[in-house]
């Protein structure tokens, strides 16, 4: 099939990114103010293009590098949809278009949005990649822009430190992935995933599959994808990076690489299981262990923190763990329909997590920090203290987001966890039932820090003295810059918050809507039957 038809969403995003790069050459504030509009339009266009994409069957280009399946279409749609919210979060609101309250682009507004679009493009490429180089390049395309976004997001040393940590460890993980890919290519002699599956499906006495080398390849690639997911034991960077980056960027990097990594991981295990999920038992056990460790370590680390962004970083690790619970279920269950359930649950949770994430980070963006600095909004519990009384709507949304992240009923997160645990419990597999129990215990532990956020927001602290601090700090903090005052209102961010809050509530309360989203997610499981061919 003609490749152009397959990648209309990607092409839309790329064209917009190119346009934004060109716009970056201009120095007029007007151009900068125009940049997010272009980005948003591109996102909307790409979303429409992706949504009207065909949902069943597999469409491939002539070279076999891309295979658009139901799963690809779903992942593309949710990533572009949530990506549009990231555009809203990063919307520059200062008059010169160089910053909003928590992010500072300096003069590179257009470049920032171009990078965001490219990262989303990378995610789309990962979603439809069908050959090892495409997968690799897709992952890199989803990651490299985020390294730059982290580093450029704030004129603080913190951001650059976060950037260098993220980038260097990312390069390390890329090297691991490449080593794994080289062995995978070596043992099968094929680059295309569907061909690899063919090779692995051949009878054992035919051309061999390299025994342990295949396992080595799978493990190395898996580790690299787990790095993107920030799963234990490759989670170490997450706290530092999320804390250092500007809040809108944190929101983006807690979603984009994660979804890309998860998608790649599902593909990898599908390929390694020769398209029938016939995985080595030890590998299945490994996925189980990593899922448990990831959610536990994430939740446990989140308890003793001072910085809310860091808390959310650890929470995102825990949520990777929940996604991995779905993956563990997927690889453990035997019945195809349960497999479908598990994959649909993962797909649903990705979307739910993205939306909840935007809500909490959006609220953090709108609340001022006690000690103001350019491109710094609320980050610590102190900053949040009593904010709910001053900004009731934001307080309520934050509570909603946190409840959803815990998984309290009447929120999207509840159904996310419900769908995740359902196939695990239904399978009757002891390991999976234990997994479900551990997930619930973890949800209880996570309540410890989420509720702390909510409590902080609604504590009786009146925030006295904030104004005074702000006045004295004003001169030193703002002398360098072009920062907009922290009281500025941001309609796009409010819109993003409202959209995500509405999403959380709607998915949590209106059962038919939840069902519809779940069915959309379940459509992605058609891929399981079709295979990547």
């Amino acid at each position, binding site marked *: 099939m003609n490749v152009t038809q397959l990648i209309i969403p990607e092409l839309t995003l790329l064209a917009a990114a190119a346009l934004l790069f060109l716009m970056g050459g201009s120095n007029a504030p007007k151009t900068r103010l125009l940049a997010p509009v272009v980005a948003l339009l591109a996102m909307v266009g790409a979303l429409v293009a992706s949504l009207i994409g065909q949902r069943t069957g597999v469409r491939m280009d002539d070279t076999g590098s891309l295979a658009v399946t139901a799963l690809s279409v779903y992942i593309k749609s949710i990533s572009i949809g949530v990506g549009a919210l990231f555009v809203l979060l990063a919307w520059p609101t200062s008059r010169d278009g160089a910053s909003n309250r928590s992010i500072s682009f300096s003069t590179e507004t257009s470049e920032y949005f171009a990078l965001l679009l490219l990262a989303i493009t990378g995610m789309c490429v990962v979603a439809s990649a069908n050959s090892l*180089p495409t997968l690799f390049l897709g992952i890199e395309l989803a990651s490299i822009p985020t390294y730059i976004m982290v580093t450029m997001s704030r004129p603080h040393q913190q951001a*650059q430190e976060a950037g260098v940590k993220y*980038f*260097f460890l990312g390069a390390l993980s*890329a090297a691991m992935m490449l*080593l794994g890919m080289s062995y995978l290519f*070596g043992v099968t*002699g094929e680059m295309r995933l569907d061909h690899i599956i063919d090779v692995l499906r051949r009878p054992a006495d035919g051309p061999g599959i390299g025994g342990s080398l295949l396992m080595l390849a799978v493990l190395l690639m898996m580790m690299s994808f787990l790095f993107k997911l920030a799963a234990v034991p490759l989670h170490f960077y997450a*706290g530092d990076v999320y804390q250092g980056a500007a809040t809108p960027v944190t929101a983006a990097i807690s979603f984009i690489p994660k979804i890309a990594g998860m998608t790649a991981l599902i593909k990898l295990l599908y390929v390694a299981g020769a398209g029938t999920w016939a995985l080595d038992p030890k590998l299945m056990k490994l996925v189980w262990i990593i899922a448990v460790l990831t959610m536990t370590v994430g939740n446990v680390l989140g308890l003793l923190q001072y910085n809310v962004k860091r808390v959310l970083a650890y929470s995102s690790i825990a949520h990777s763990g929940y996604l991995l619970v779905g993956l563990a279920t997927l690889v453990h269950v035997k019945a195809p329909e349960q497999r479908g359930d598990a994959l649909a649950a993962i797909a649903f949770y990705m979307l739910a997590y993205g939306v909840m994430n935007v809500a909490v980070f959006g609220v953090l963006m709108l609340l001022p920090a006690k000690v103001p600095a350019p491109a710094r909004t609320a980050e610590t519990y102190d900053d949040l203290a009593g904010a709910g009384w001053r900004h009731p709507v934001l307080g309520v949304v934050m509570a909603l987001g946190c409840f959803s992240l815990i998984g309290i009923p009447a929120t999207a997160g509840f159904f996310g966890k419900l769908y995740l645990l359902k196939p695990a419990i239904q399978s009757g597999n002891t390991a999976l039932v234990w997994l479900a129990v551990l997930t619930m215990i973890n949800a209880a532990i996570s309540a410890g820090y989420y509720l702390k956020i909510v409590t902080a927001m609604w504590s009786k602290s009146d925030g006295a003295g904030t104004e005074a601090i702000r006045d004295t700090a004003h001169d030193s903090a703002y002398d360098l810059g072009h920062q907009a005052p922290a009281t500025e209102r941001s309609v796009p961010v409010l819109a993003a918050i409202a959209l995500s809050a509405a999403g959380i509530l709607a998915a949590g309360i209106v059962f038919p809507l939840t069902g519809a989203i779940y069915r959309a997610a379940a459509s992605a499981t058609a891929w399981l039957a079709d295979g990547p061919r």
Partner: protein
Amino acid sequence: MPDVFTNIALQHYLIVGALMFAIGMIGFMCRRNLIVMFLCSELMLQGVAINFIAFGAFWGKLSGQAFVIFILAIAAAEAALALAIIVLLFRQKHTVDSQAFRELRG
């Protein structure tokens, strides 16, 4: 398929690639100079490139070489970015010691 490259030859090249990867990894872990660290990550990529070329020759396929081109492209891209970030960091603290940057922790 023409058997121009045997298992034995393949294994030799693979061992060289693996050792180079491991040496690069050691350097990445213990050299504190950020520039050298990234140099070491390039070393790891070299090891992988040897693997790819060897496997490509083993299977008689050009795709191994093609992949190495992409690796080179990514290596170049990452190097450019890494050096930019290092310059940026150097401007703040006048050092490229990775240990100096630990404001974020916990």
